[in-house]
């Protein structure tokens, strides 16, 4: 039981929207599509739903070729970023509408609507119309409607993007469990790396209409295979440094030389490391350190973001706790070489890092 896109391409001549996209999603799984606006997330979902027919490639559902089968003949439910509800119908009727269209018996409709309303905490609101609801309640109504259909494929296109931050946090917690109970294939599109990590499941990263990585969320975050996937899966943005590896040293564009990285062959590389691995302070022995100046510091409660100009690049250091450095302050920053990823000119990642030691707490 699965959904397969096999070599799917889509687009107008000269403007590819999807290029040779292949994915394999299992029934009962949660699959996150992660990428910036216009990277192809919605286009992939439209192909999966049968709203668009691909120019090349096939779509398989449970082993059957469904390429070109229209959406009305598929078992699909979709939730969009913009809440879509029938304004004149009550919440109850909004949730019930796909079941009425399907001609289900009255008692069955009643039972399914009550179930979904309970799960999404809409029970006290069933008699209201959408205009009398908050944004979060309207979106929960739209999600409940997707749930009652018990579709084999549920597509959620940035469903929480227009909701309050805290409400998003709660729904993120609840949504995967909610849909897991239905056994559907769940596909969830987002622009936010943290959302992909919080949801868990499998993450597929997208860049300019191509899939660039696919795997369990945290594993893919820690061990991305190439530069586009690493950039898309970094928040704060990836810190980067172009270098020339030569004679056991790293040569920077401004003429500085740093100690070489073990295992890195000579040549042109783009080094990358995450903000949480950039430390502020005097570099300990063996670390890669540079001098810079603070552009701006942002305090976000449990962590602070120190934006540092190191001359050849601008980096962000994510520091635990409150660190308030004035703009223009001279600082030293450093990173543990084991945290550095190296990418070749084509963006492919070289194998370098050694895992850090561990201890047992439970």
């Amino acid at each position, binding site marked *: 039981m699965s959904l397969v896109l096999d070599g799917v391409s889509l687009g107008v001549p000269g403007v590819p929207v999807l290029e040779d996209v292949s994915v394999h999603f299992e029934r009962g799984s949660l699959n996150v599509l992660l990428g*910036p*606006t216009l990277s192809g997330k919605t286009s992939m979902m439209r192909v999966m739903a049968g709203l668009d027919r691909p120019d090349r490639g096939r779509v398989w559902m449970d082993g059957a070729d469904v390429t070109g089968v229209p959406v009305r003949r598929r078992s699909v439910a979709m939730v969009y970023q913009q809440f879509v509800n029938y304004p004149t119908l009550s919440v109850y009727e909004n949730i019930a509408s796909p079941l009425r269209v399907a001609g289900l018996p009255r008692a069955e409709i009643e039972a399914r609507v009550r179930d979904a309303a309970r799960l999404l905490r809409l029970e006290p609101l069933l008699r209201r119309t959408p205009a009398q609801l*908050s*944004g*979060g309640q309207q979106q929960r109504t739209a999600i409940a409607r997707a749930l009652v259909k018990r579709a084999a494929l549920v597509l959620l296109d940035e469903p929480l993007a227009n909701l*309050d*931050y*805290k*409400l998003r*946090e709660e729904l993120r917690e609840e949504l995967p469990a909610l849909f897991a109970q239905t056994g559907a294939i769940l596909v969830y599109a987002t*622009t*936010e*790396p*943290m959302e992909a*990590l*919080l949801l*868990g499941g499998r993450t597929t990263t997208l860049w300019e209409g191509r899939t660039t990585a696919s795997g369990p*969320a*945290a594993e893919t*975050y*820690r061990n991305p295979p190439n530069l586009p996937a690493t*950039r898309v899966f970094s*928040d*704060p*943005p990836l810190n980067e440094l172009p270098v020339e590896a030569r004679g056991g040293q790293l040569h920077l564009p401004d003429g500085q030389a740093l100690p070489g990285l073990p295992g890195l062959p000579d040549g042109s590389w783009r080094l990358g490391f*995450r903000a*949480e691995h950039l430390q502020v302070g005097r570099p300990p022995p063996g670390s890669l350190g540079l001098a810079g100046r603070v*552009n*701006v510091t*942002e*305090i*976000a*409660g*449990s962590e602070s*973001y120190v*934006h540092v100009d190191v001359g050849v690049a601008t980096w*962000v250091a*994510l520091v*635990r706790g*409150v660190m*308030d450095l004035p*703009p223009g302050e001279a600082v030293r920053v450093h990173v543990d070489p084991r945290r550095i990823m190296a990418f070749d000119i084509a963006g492919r990642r070289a194998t370098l890092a050694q895992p*850090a*030691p*561990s*201890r*047992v*707490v*439970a």
Partner: protein
Amino acid sequence: MARITLDGIGHAYGPRPGGPADYALQPLDLVWEQGLAYALLGPSGCGKTTLLNIISGLVQPSHGRLLFDGTDVTHLPTERRNIAQVFQFPVIYDTMTVAGNLAFPLRNRGMDRAGIVQQVARTAAMLGLTEVLDRPARNLSADAKQKISLGRGLVRQDVAAVLFDEPLTVIDPGLKWELRSKLKAVHRALDLLMIYVTHDQTEALTFADQVVVMEGGQVLQVGTPAELFERPDHTFVGHFIGSPGMNLLPAEVSGMEARVDGHALPLAGRYAPLDAGRIEVGVRPDFVALTDGPGLPVQVDRIDDLGRVRLARVRLGRHRMVATVPPDAVVSGSEARVRIDPARIHVYADSRRVAPL
């Protein structure tokens, strides 16, 4: 140049408000100073937008007076308040160039040509728009258009205040980083009073000198980002700020100890006997860590791996809480211990923080 004074400002729905439920915004007193940035932070329906609309003149408050530099502007229309506004979606003239858009508010005020050129160049440089100044605004990307909107809000130096209404909501995460740090740098460079409405704690905390946390039409706490994180005055502030929010556990407190479902938590301060109302202790997940040393026994329900941090969903007795997992730690069983920093535990009675003796 201005100081804004909210003197008993409130807004009720009907002509004869009874209880708090009749108010979109309960009467409040606040003073906002020239040169500082303020964020109004809260969930939808908390009253933050009503408050912003009262400042801009879109809403006439039912209660109180609004003063700009001591002058009563409560009943003045928006155009006579001398404020600049930036909205959630870009508001620009498609037919004009980027420079034309930035110059528009200055032309409206009758500024001379040389002054306009200078101000437009300075604003464009701050926001990274210099290279596109001569391009038509029409063909630019959504984030570039929002940069122009921000530029139009910041181009005049003589405004009483710049009001931002969720300006980064439609921006992709990567570009949010760029725009946020640009805004912050602009705030450092310009001597303007800025008021920023958002539901996003990261935007509020990173931008503002002072954050006004609101809920249910009420201001619950005004403080610096560090104060709101380290010492929330209200359990809602503890919950709303921080991701995930503060752990709140029903407790009995006496002297220098709290008891949570039979477990003793040492406290850093001494408390007077608390027997009235609902007593809770609050501690942020950041200060609760799984440990292989001594600590309180917990059941581990789940580990959430968020890439750069791992969170353990645990139970202390019957009560759920969130703990952090140290970077080098391995968790395999369901029995564990947590270490809680006593100095980071706060005590709340009926949702309000109780200060130690």
